[in-house]
């Protein structure tokens, strides 16, 4: 391997790191990504120039096809479909790693050059890769509602999964010492494809953020393993950056959902937990009409909007932003409180609001907004339910007890927009609706918002 190429790789690695570092603020984020793009360009050019590449046609064909598909997906996918895109893209990345691994195995196999160490690296590569491919495809299917989003469970599921896992690991260990057993190698790959399917099956739609993050981490680890197999440092660095990014995100997600890692993977929660902790006394709810809502908002000095995925489904984010503009025109301070799991993947809601032109300094994290919640005049909850459920704070019996929530109930007035009194995704009763300072505004989020904006514009 010549020095020039290694130096180019080193340069790329640095650009990747700086790129991710740039993401620590919206201001520097784009410049950071440009750096990472440049890093990738250098790495590709360096490889093409430095390696003894003999045939070009196929490379060009592959690059052309891949770029076209990638560009098309990037340009035409709506922002709500972001999680699906990411899931697919994990599958592609992992598939590329698997293919490279198989190829390396075949080539080195021909030459009889597979050492135990190399086999170890290759094994990791194809195992993580294959599992990520099918796992991400399953996640994609669930998100796209091609497979039903509810957890699919059956008796003895954990037993099947665990034994499958051990068989595969056993094969891997066997291969390390007997690398030339082709049949075992391909069976192992097939089994890990299966594992990918099986581990995602029992995971419900609500837990998808964790799954996607986890797949992200696996895809990165597969890339890093590739680096070990072919002695390439830039692959190791980029792969481990990706791996740690996915890992951190899945931890953040698990924490925000008040679940442990193992719980998500093996517990198959997201199953509508039969929750009978009905409130002892059925207190009356208070409804509010559009005009009254307008009146309340008009009086407010500080308004906080708490958007949930329901808002995105109703495509109401643009109307919400219009409302916020109207309010700001009147001198009201408007902010958005974003729960870490709002949306379907880490940070998803922020992207949806950014798309609707909401300024990023209006987007506040849960920890930032909660301490000042009692100075908020009006809090508008749109399509969010569990993330504002005070039972998480107060009621020990509740399945979400201990989950961090946005304390909307501490605001002076809360307006909850909701289709009906049906309970949320997780099927948990929400005592917020019965609080004396809560007003319910029933209807489709988008329609209600439009009416509200029209009301404001009337004057």
């Amino acid at each position, binding site marked *: 391997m010549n020095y020039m190429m290694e130096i180019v790789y080193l340069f790329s690695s640095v650009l990747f790191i700086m790129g*991710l*570092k740039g*993401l620590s*603020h919206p201001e520097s984020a*784009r410049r*950071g*990504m440009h750096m*990472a*793009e440049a*890093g990738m360009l250098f*790495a590709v050019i360096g*490889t093409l120039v430095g*390696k*003894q590449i003999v045939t070009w046609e*196929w*490379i060009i*064909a*592959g690059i052309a*096809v*891949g*770029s076209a*598909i*990638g560009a098309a997906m*990037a340009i035409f*996918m709506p922002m709500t479909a972001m999680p699906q895109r990411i899931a697919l*893209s994990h599958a592609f990345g992992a598939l*590329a*790693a698997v*293919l*490279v691994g198989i*190829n390396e195995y*075949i080539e080195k196999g021909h030459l009889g050059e597979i*050492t135990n160490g190399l086999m170890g690296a290759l094994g990791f590569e194809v195992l993580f890769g294959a599992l990520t491919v099918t796992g991400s495809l399953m996640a994609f299917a669930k998100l796209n509602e091609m497979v039903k989003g509810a957890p699919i469970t059956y008796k003895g599921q954990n037993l099947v999964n665990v034994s499958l896992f051990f068989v595969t690991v056993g094969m891997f260990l066997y291969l390390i010492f007997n690398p030339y057993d082709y049949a075992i190698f391909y069976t192992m790959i097939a089994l890990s494809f299966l594992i990918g399917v099986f581990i995602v099956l029992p995971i419900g739609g609500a837990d998808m953020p964790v799954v996607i993050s986890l797949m992200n981490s696996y*895809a*990165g680890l597969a890339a890093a393993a*590739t*680096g070990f197999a*072919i002695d390439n*440092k830039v*692959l190791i660095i980029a792969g*481990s*950056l*990706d*791996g*740690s*990014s*996915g890992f*951190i*995100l899945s931890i*953040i997600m698990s924490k925000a959902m008040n679940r442990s890692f193992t719980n998500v993977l093996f517990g198959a929660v997201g199953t509508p937990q039969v929750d009978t902790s009905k409130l002892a006394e059925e207190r009356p709810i208070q409804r509010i009409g559009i005009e009254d809502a307008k009146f309340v908002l008009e009086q407010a000095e500080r308004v906080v909007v708490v958007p949930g995925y329901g808002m995105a489904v109703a495509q109401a984010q643009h109307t919400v932003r219009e409302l916020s503009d109207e309010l*700001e025109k009147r001198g009201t301070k408007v902010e958005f409180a*974003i729960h*870490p799991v709002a*949306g379907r993947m*880490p940070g998803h809601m*922020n992207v949806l609001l*950014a*798309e609707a032109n909401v*300024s990023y300094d209006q987007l506040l*994290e849960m920890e930032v907004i909660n301490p000042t919640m009692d100075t908020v005049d009006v809090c508008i909850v749109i399509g969010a339910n569990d993330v504002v459920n005070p039972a998480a704070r107060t009621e020990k019996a509740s399945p979400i007890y201990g989950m961090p929530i946005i304390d909307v109930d501490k605001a002076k007035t809360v307006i909850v927009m909701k289709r009906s009194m049906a309970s949320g995704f997780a099927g948990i009763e929400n005592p917020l609706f019965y609080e004396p300072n809560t007003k319910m505004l029933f209807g489709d989020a988008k329609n209600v918002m439009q009416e509200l904006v029209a009301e404001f514009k009337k004057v």
Partner: protein
Amino acid sequence: MDILTVLPFLLMIFVVAILLGTEVISKVPSILHTPLMSGSNAISGITVVAALVAAGEGHNWVSTLLGTAAVAFAMINVVGGYLVTNRMLSMFKKHEEPKP
């Protein structure tokens, strides 16, 4: 080449890069978690480097085929990932001055 001779260096790099990744990424605010994920995904499309070699060394048609497929898939990640990240990030804007 026996991998055992280079493994320590590679492992050291791996370990240090993991530590670094953890530090850098834990500072990304939750506002940018989605761009972070798609961005780091594009970065992990670095597999393209390995795929290029597999496709271009021209040992046999199986290699070429596998390699080409790998190049295509990795490029989807690279191009798609960066483009979509860029698209998302261009949406994150600060408030314009209030219109008169």
